[in-house]
C-alpha cells in the first residue's frame, strides 16, 4: 500500500485542478482483489480481464486527454512568456523604447517568477505522467500476480506509446525554459547561494514549489526498496541533499501525512 499512500499524498498536494486526473489506483486495486477472489464461472477470467482492461483504458484516456490539454496550454504559454520577456526588454530595458530601470526590474521580476512557476508546472506534468505510469505498471503486476493473467507485458508496451507517457515535448519546453531563465536571469554568486540554501528553513507554503518538493520526495520514497522489489523495479533513488529537501516540507502549514 505504500505506493497507494504516496500517490494519495501527491494527489492531495497537487494543484487542485489536477486532483481527479490521477490514476484511480485504489479502486483498481480493489477490483483486482475482487476479481481474484470472485472466481465464479459466470465471471470468468476472460471477462474479468476484458473488463479490467476496459477500465484501464478509460484511465489511459483520461490521462491522455488531460496531458495533451495541458501540453497545448504549455506550448501557448511558453511562447507567450518568451514574447513577454522580449517585450519587457524592448520596452523598459536599456536601449528600449522607454528605458526605465525601475520598471524594467519590476517587470522582469514578475516575468521571472512566472517563468519559474511555469517551469515548475511543466515539471509537475511530467511527474504526473510518470506517477500514473508507475501506478499502471504496479496495478498490472498485481493483476497478473493475482489472476495469473499475462496482461502486464503487452499492456505496458501499449502504455509506453501513449501520448501521456511520451513527455518529450514537455521536457523540451522545460529545458528551453531553463535556458531562457539562465540567460535572462543569470546566476550570481554561487557559494553564497548554497549557504543560504542551507540556512533556509521554510521556503514554500503552497503552490508549485511545494508540489515539486512533494513530488521529488515521493519519488524517492516510492523507489525505496520494497518487499516486492524485483527485476522490473526501479533502483532506489538517492538524493545527496535529501535532508534539505525534506526540510522544505517540514514547516509547511499543511501537515503531510
Amino acid at each position, binding site marked *: 500500500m505504500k505506493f497507494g499512500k504516496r500517490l494519495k499524498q501527491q494527489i492531495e498536494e497537487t494543484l487542485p485542478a489536477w486532483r481527479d486526473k490521477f490514476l484511480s489506483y485504489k479502486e483498481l486495486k480493489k477490483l483486482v482483489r475482487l476479481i481474484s477472489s470472485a472466481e465464479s464461472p459466470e465471471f470468468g477470467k476472460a*471477462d*474479468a480481464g476484458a473488463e479490467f482492461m*476496459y477500465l484501464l483504458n478509460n484511465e489511459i484516456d483520461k490521462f491522455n486527454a488531460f496531458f495533451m490539454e495541458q501540453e497545448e496550454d504549455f506550448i501557448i504559454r511558453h511562447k*507567450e512568456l518568451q514574447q513577454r520577456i522580449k517585450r519587457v526588454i524592448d520596452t523598459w530595458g536599456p536601449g528600449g523604447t522607454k528605458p526605465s530601470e525601475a520598471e524594467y526590474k519590476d517587470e522582469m*521580476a514578475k516575468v521571472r517568477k512566472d517563468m*519559474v512557476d511555469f517551469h515548475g508546472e511543466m515539471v509537475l506534468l511530467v511527474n504526473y505522467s510518470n506517477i500514473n505510469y508507475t501506478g499502471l505498471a504496479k496495478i498490472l503486476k498485481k493483476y497478473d500476480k493475482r489472476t495469473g493473467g499475462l496482461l502486464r507485458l503487452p499492456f505496458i508496451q501499449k502504455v509506453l*506509446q501513449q501520448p501521456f507517457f511520451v*513527455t518529450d515535448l514537455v521536457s523540451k519546453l522545460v529545458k528551453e525554459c531553463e535556458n531562457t531563465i539562465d540567460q535572462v536571469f543569470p546566476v550570481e554568486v554561487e557559494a553564497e547561494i548554497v549557504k543560504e540554501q542551507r540556512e533556509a528553513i521554510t*521556503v514554500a507554503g503552497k503552490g508549485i514549489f511545494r508540489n515539486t518538493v512533494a513530488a521529488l520526495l515521493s519519488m524517492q520514497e516510492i523507489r525505496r526498496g520494497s518487499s516486492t522489489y524485483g527485476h522490473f523495479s526501479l533502483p532506489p533513488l538517492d538524493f545527496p541533499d535529501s535532508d534539505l529537501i525534506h526540510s522544505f516540507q517540514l514547516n509547511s502549514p499543511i501537515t503531510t501525512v
Partner: protein
Amino acid sequence: MEARPALSIQRSGASQLSNHGVSGGLSPSLPVLSTHLEETYQEFSDTQEVHAEKELMTRPLAHTTRLPTNNGVVGHIFSTSSGFSSDIHYSSALPNEKHSRNSPFISQLPTNTAALPLSQSSNSLLPQSTIPIHCNKENSGSWCTDPDFLDFPEWADQLITGDDALASNWNELLVDNVTDLEPKTTYQVAKPCTTVPAQNQQLPSPSVESHSVVNPSSSANNAPAKPRMRWTPELHEAFVEAVNQLGGSERATPKGVLKLMKVEGLTIYHVKSHLQKYRTARYRPEPSEGSSEKKLTSMEEISSLDLKTGMGITEALRLQMEVQKRLHEQLEIQRNLQLRIEEQGRYLQMMFEKQKSGLDKLKVPSSIPENPPAPSDATNDNESPTKSQLEPSQRDHVNSGTGIVNAKSMLERSPQEICGEHKAPETGDLEKTDTCVSESSSQPSKRPRIEE
C-alpha cells in the same frame, strides 16, 4: 455508393459509456452492432486505440494493405493515416438510435462523407464473421446469437468481401490515431459488464498481442468531430502566424485561421479551442488551471519567504528552480529506466517465445527433472541448438542494462515442460535464467533484492 442503408453513427461522450453499459444486456442486433461499432469507433476516434476492443477487432481483420475496393475516396482518407493524417474529417458519430437497423448511416464528414459510411459500416458488418469472436464481451453473446443480424441485406456481403482491406485500413487508422476526447470517463463500474454472461468469450483477454500501436507523438490525428489534437510548437507557430495575419487574436476567426493554416487534418474544433486558449493566455498572462489560487499562493509564498527566511525573492526563486530541475532530471532518468526495463522484458519474452516454439517442434518430453543451478549444459543438450546460440546473445543483451529483467516473473506462466524446475538464480546469474527460459511457476513471486 450502393443504395444501402447505412448505420448512423453518432457519437457522444457519454454515450460510449452508456453503451458499454447498455450493451451488457442487449438483445436486438443492431444495438450490438452499433454499440460495437461505436466502441471501436470510439476507440479509434477518441483515443489511442491501444484498447482491447480495437485490438480485438483488428486482429481478425486482414493485415493487408490499403483499401482497394469500393471507395477511392476512402482510400484517400486512409492513405495518409500514417502521417499527419487527413482523416480528421471523420466526424461521424455513433448512433444512439439502435433499433432501426436501417437507420441511415450518417457521417458528418465535412469532406469525405460518402466514403466513410462504407468503411465504417463494412467494418461493423465484418464482425459478423470475425469480430464476434473477438469483440467486447458485452457484444460477444449478442453477436453470435443474434438472428437478426443475419438478415442484413445483401450489400452486407459485398461489404464483407471488400472488408479485409478496409479493415486493415481501419487498423491503420486506429493505429495512427492519437486523439483523445475529453473523456468524461465516469468510471464505468463493473456492474454492467459483470452481468454479461461469459459467452463466446474467445477473447484471450490478457494476451493482447503486442500489436505495437504506434502513436506518433506528433500531431497525427484521425479523429472525428471532437478529437484531441496533439499540438506542437511548430503548429502553434503556424497558428500564431495565421492569427496575426488576420489581425490579432481578437479579430481572427477559427474559420479564417483554419483556412490560412492549411494544415491537413486540422479541424475547426481544434482551432477554436486553441484560439480560446490563446486568447486567455494573452489577456491573462500566466493563467493556468487554478490560476487564481496559484496567484494567491504565489503571493503568500513570497511573503512567507520574505518573512520566514529572509531570503530574497531571487534566492527563493533560484531554490525553486533547483528543486524543479532536480525533479525533472530524476523524472527523465526514471522514465528511461522504465523504458529500458520494459524493453528488456519484451526482448526476453521474445526470446522465450522463440525458444518455446523451437522446443515445441522438437517435442521435448515434459518430464525433465530438477536441474542443478548450472543447467546450461544439460538443458542445452536437451533443447534445440538454437538455445545455446541465444544464450550468449541474451546474456550480452540482458547484462547490459541496468534494469535487470526478471525473466522468471515474465515467464511465470511458461509451461514447465520446457525446462522443468529451475531454481531462479539470484542477481547476476541471468545467463542461467536465460538458458532455461521458462521456469516453474512455483517460484515465489517475491523476489529478493537485486543489485542494480
